């Protein structure tokens, strides 16, 4: 049977962090849609929208800043789904830190996971009447021991980053608390975006992709044990310490499962409210209307599946495999 390949560019390797993909693949949801996912994990400074534009990728996982930047720069982009609604960027401190609010950061050193998190910090500081000059910033690097040690040893007072960045650290037993101000957390999470033309040429495949993803996400809401089993088989590297694996997955489920009733639902208001801050700190030159790039059609299609049927299938799978 001929499967259409959907090239999906995402920031990380196949991981429990992307369990909807893993579950969808294991339970055959993508196949049912007649598609096959080609995951392109890419940790490059090349913005993913470029891969959408030159056709190397059909769909990309973008954070809200990248979306707004690209749209403001005139890229004809369509946001079709909001993944990780509860994983927006934020400010984190060690669980053992005395700091409980951003305003306490005056005169302290603030770590940035990467240079792109500077805006998150700027907006957060601004919300408490501080500016970048009131703190010292240092880039501490992405996930890994360096970041973990920064939390554990409190070499920096706070760290600006996004949900997936602390996932492994928390799962490893290093306490992390969030002190993200309202103004920052009230912001879209990561999204799936496509080039405008893709919807015309490959609209069915994209909708199929999102539906399969949604079904995978939905499984976690009622059968986390099945998800754990699937993740363990797909990415055993994350389960060498089973306790860690379990914890990691639980955190990932929290980040991934949509809080809106419609899975992956788009919220125009938050897209509206985040822009003044970004403009203020020079990330975007002009504000754009959310209606120019939000494309609600595919989300509807993605939610168009029979939840009971999914539940039955999962039960059957559990009986067969566990």
């Amino acid at each position, binding site marked *: 049977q001929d499967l259409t390949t959907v090239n999906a560019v995402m920031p990380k390797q196949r991981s429990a962090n992307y369990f909807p993909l893993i579950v969808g693949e294991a339970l055959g949801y993508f196949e049912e849609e007649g598609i096959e996912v080609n995951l392109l994990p890419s940790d490059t*400074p090349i913005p993913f929208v*470029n891969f959408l534009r*030159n056709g190397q990728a059909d769909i990309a996982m973008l954070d809200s800043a990248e979306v707004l930047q690209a749209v403001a720069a005139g890229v004809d982009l369509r946001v079709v789904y909001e993944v990780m609604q509860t994983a927006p960027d934020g400010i984190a401190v060690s669980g053992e830190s005395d700091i409980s609010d951003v305003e306490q950061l005056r005169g302290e050193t603030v770590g940035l996971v990467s240079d792109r998190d500077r805006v998150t910090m700027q907006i957060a500081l601004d919300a408490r009447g501080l500016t970048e000059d009131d703190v010292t910033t240092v880039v501490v690097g992405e996930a890994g*021991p360096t970041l973990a040690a920064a939390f554990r040893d409190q070499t920096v007072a706070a760290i600006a980053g996004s949900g997936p960045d602390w996932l492994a650290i928390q799962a490893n037993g290093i306490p992390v608390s969030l002190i993200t101000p309202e103004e920052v957390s009230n912001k879209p999470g990561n999204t799936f975006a496509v080039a405008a033309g893709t919807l015309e040429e490959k609209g069915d495949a994209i909708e199929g992709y999102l539906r399969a993803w949604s079904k995978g996400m939905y499984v976690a809401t009622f059968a986390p044990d099945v998800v754990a089993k699937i993740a363990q088989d797909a990415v055993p590297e994350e389960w060498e310490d089973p306790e860690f694996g379990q914890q990691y997955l639980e955190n990932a489920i929290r980040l991934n499962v949509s809080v809106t009733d419609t899975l992956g639902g788009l919220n125009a208001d938050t897209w509206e409210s985040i822009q003044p801050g970004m403009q203020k700190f020079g990330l975007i030159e002009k504000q754009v209307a959310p209606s120019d790039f939000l494309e609600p059609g595919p989300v509807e299609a993605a939610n168009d599946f029979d939840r009971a049927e999914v539940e039955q299938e999962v039960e059957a799978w559990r009986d067969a495999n566990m």
Partner: protein
Amino acid sequence: MKDHLLSRAVPLAKHLLVFAALIAFWEAAAAIGLIDVILLPEPHQIAASIWDLYVENRTIYRHFFITLYEALGGFLVGGALGLALAVGSSLNDSFRRYVSPYAILLNVTPGLALTPIVIAWFGFGYSSKIALGAIVCFFPVFVNTLIALTRSDAETLEMFRSMGASERQIFWKLRVPSALPMIFAGFKIAITTALVGAVVAEFSQATAGIGVLMQRLSFSLDMSAAIAALLSMSLLGLILFTLIELLDDRIVFWRRAARMDAVSRKRRARWTGEREKQSGKPQGRRRST
């Protein structure tokens, strides 16, 4: 003089011509769609970005000098380390036997894999970039110096021995000078390697530097500026390389006819100068050469 200028100008003009032809070819290829201009912008766009970075906004300089500092620091530390290990290995066979496997091991281990450890030890600042630069660049210096120090001409060595020279004298008056050309060849590789190390570290974790600037420009969708930053790295490498070449030219003067003539004239002048001084002031200063 005129001839001399002309003889330099003509090849330079030819080089420029070749360069211009390449740029024109690139521009044309982009124009007819052979090159994806989203990812690899056209030369004129890159030129505009260079103007922007260097003249208009002058954003590049801070990052440029930070990376320069890191690369130079890495080179100095790594070079000194390589020299020290090579000298130790050249003087003592068992030192060499037990050190060289680890030297090779460190050389074949990708620098990128070492960044977390280096950052853990040296922190988030410049010293971790310098450290990684040093780790990746010590090997060429080590190998070249070791080989050069242990391969002195046998007859010249005997000549020194027949004069009753001590091992120390042989080391300083024969081994070191005759090893210099090859040591400098090692330096030339090491300096670009140190830059690579610094940039690798910057890509993993850094607050400023050309690597950071390139990432930043790239994220803000300004590919032509990102390429301009990339070219600035090349420029930096070229500058560092040329720096060593200039030093090489000065220190290993006896390999270049023109420099040798100059040194030769200077030494003659010093001698004749000293003769004159002496005739005026009978008890001339004693000075060892």
